[in-house]
């Protein structure tokens, strides 16, 4: 039975955000015996509420942050005036981004935690080592894979970092794009392997295996087979009897007592009444964009520049989702609209290589191209007709025969890329809108161009009727990966949280989500965000038991 607390009752932990990280933190803390209130701004939907409704999901923000009520402003660089623009896209509901993500579940490699010392400084970027190493996270990657349910084949990727356990279940069945990709990459001497996916290939812990309906990317799973925290963590948290989930509760401030400790959060409930929930400790899991915004809104006499911001780095070092796209159309139908998006990928170009002359690396996966509406709007080659008889014929021909290669590549942290509060624009609750300042580092763009060439080579080997790519930098906003804005580190002057995800400035404030990431990996940050969440919850529980919070 779900717990119910009064707001003036002091709970052990108030968790803000119930997404990839928040769902895990809430469950782990509740099962460890603590009382927890989870505040989530979005609704509590269930598997039966999810639909194959592309217009609703992709054009009407059925699941995601809605620019009409929570506008975001964007500018390329500091000093410019920001304009309203959809620069950030995240799933706004119980389960957060783990509900609508594609479910690529890549562990970071060892190198991702120590690139600054291996590679050296990159001019214009704030590349840094993490305060922890891959080996510190490894047990928690394994825990996430087993607890939530991840499909994959251990040992299939020769570049994989060491692992303590195989995946809990075999990979999902290969699709046409995977077969074509596997043949072509082998011909080139590369090392394709089955994609690790947070989607069940077999029934697991009372949940159904994937039914191959094809609607994973951006959609909620109608079968509960995607291992979102909505399906795989939050039910256990509620069942513990120690966790209360309050959906449609929008936190606007973390409160501080006279001693400089967090003592609760203020939020707007569904009726837009202000409520103060008291707590012994606060955990922010509101994602790489909303967490820094909330900290910057949490000003007080003691913290005039925002909470936990003595370094001035809250909101800075924002890292985005970088990707390059190439497509190929084949003679026979591939029917890529079925099943999970990705079944094969390569990590051959993962590491940065000095011979390339720039920093950066990535992975390439083979996948379906797009759902029907987006395919109709953007799916055909750039020189194809956009409307009329020929267009329609081409669409019917191309849709079932097209596949896509997607390269997921590094995004360098830069202090000038940030989340701040917009000085003018307000959201529907009267709070300052999120302002995004972001431009790509030149090495990020060089990496994209490099990967564009590698993907076209793969298509050359695959012999489609035709292959095409989009100019690097095409379609990079809005970003769906939001990272780096409260980076983790040992030095309070150059980081916001310590190696335990505890804010340097506030002893009982924890920040656990995409904002802690020091580097972007090769995108697909969710496995790492969740491994960090399991680890941080362990640390918090241990500290709380010792009375250290």
């Amino acid at each position, binding site marked *: 039975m779900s717990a119910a607390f009064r707001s003036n009752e002091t709970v052990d932990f108030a968790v803000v955000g119930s997404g990839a990280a928040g769902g895990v933190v809430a469950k782990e803390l509740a099962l460890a015996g603590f009382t927890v209130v989870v505040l989530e701004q979005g609704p509590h939907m269930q*598997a*039966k509420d*999810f*639909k*194959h*409704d*592309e*217009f*609703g999901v992709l*054009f*009407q923000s059925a699941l995601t942050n809605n620019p009409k009520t929570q506008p975001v402003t964007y500018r390329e660089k500091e000093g410019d005036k920001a304009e309203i623009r959809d620069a950030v896209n995240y799933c706004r509901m119980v389960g957060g981004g783990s509900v609508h993500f594609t479910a690529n579940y890549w562990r970071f490699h060892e190198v991702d935690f120590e690139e600054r010392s291996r590679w050296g400084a990159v001019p214009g970027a704030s590349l840094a080592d993490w305060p922890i190493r891959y080996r510190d996270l490894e047990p928690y990657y394994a825990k996430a894979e087993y607890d939530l349910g991840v499909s994959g084949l251990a040992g299939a990727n020769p570049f994989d970092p060491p692992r303590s356990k195989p995946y809990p279940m075999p990979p999902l069945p290969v699709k046409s794009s995977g077969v074509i990709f596997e043949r072509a990459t082998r011909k080139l001497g590369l090392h394709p392997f089955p994609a690790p996916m947070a989607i069940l290939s077999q029934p697991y812990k009372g949940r*159904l295996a994937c*039914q*191959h*309906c*094809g609607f994973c990317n951006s959609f909620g799973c*109608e*079968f509960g087979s995607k291992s979102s925290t909505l399906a795989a963590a939050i039910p256990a948290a509620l069942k513990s009897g120690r966790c209360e989930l309050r959906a449609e509760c929008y936190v606007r401030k973390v409160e501080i007592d006279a001693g400089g400790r967090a003592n609760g959060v203020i939020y707007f409930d569904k009726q837009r009444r202000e409520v103060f929930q008291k707590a012994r400790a606060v955990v922010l899991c509101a994602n790489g964009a909303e967490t820094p915004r909330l900290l910057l809104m949490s000003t007080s006499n003691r913290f005039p520049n925002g909470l936990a911001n003595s370094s001035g780095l809250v909101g800075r070092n924002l890292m985005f989702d970088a990707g390059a796209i190439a497509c190929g159309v084949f003679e026979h*139908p591939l*029917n890529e*609209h*079925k099943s999970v998006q990705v079944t094969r990928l390569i990590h051959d170009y993962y590491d940065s290589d000095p011979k390339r002359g720039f920093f950066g690396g990535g992975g390439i996966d083979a996948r379906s191209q797009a759902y*029907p*509406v987006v*395919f*109709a*709007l953007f799916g055909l080659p750039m020189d194809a007709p*956009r*409307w*009329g*008889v020929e267009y*329609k*014929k081409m*669409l*019917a021909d191309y*849709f*079932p025969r097209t596949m896509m290669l997607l390269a997921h590549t590094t995004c360098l942290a830069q202090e000038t890329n940030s989340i701040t509060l917009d000085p003018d624009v307000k959201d529907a609750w009267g709070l300052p809108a999120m302002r995004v300042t972001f431009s790509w580092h030149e090495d990020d763009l060089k990496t994209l161009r490099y990967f564009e060439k590698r993907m076209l080579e793969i298509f050359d080997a695959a012999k489609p009727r035709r292959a095409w790519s989009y100019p690097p930098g095409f379609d990079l906003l809005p970003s769906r990966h939001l990272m780096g804005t409260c980076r983790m580190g040992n030095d309070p002057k150059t980081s916001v949280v310590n190696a335990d995800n505890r804010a340097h400035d506030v002893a009982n404030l924890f920040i656990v989500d995409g904002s802690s990431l020091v580097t972007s990996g090769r995108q697909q940050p969710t496995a790492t965000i969740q491994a960090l969440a399991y680890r941080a919850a362990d640390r918090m529980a241990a500290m709380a038991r010792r009375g250290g919070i």
Partner: protein
Amino acid sequence: MKISRNPDRRRFLRTAAGVAAIPAASCTRAGRRWRFLTDEQADTIGAICDQIIPPDQDPGAVSAGVVHFIDRQLKGHYAYLQDAYIKGVVEIEQAAQEKFGKRFSALASEQQLDLLREREKTAFFRMIADHAMQGFYGDPRHGGNRDFASWKMMGIPNPPVRGRQQHDLTKS
């Protein structure tokens, strides 16, 4: 090709006439076929959309319900675009009168294409083309893609695989 020789469009107009004569139960204002558009505006928009997604061996925009989709959205998600639609329709009707002396929907296909090609880069044309695609290729629940017309054309299985909750046999 004359629009009136287009079977899809004729069928659509016949249905439209029928609905106008017998007030539909689901319509709050008896005799009104559209939530936002006038019959004339709907006629123009339909003719434009049928050039963007023309009927061939598969249904075109109008018979798949794209005008209904646009009309609904103009009272919903795209309410802020009402003016843009009204102005765009007025502009193209004026041009049709000036150049050919007829309503847009009464022009020969080549004449319609002539006017549309001149406007291909305008905000109005891009908007209506985007919305035509959204209606034609999107989920039928929004009024377009009637009978999964576009999904059949693209080879997407119908009915699509759905969550078990939607196959609850106790309810059917």
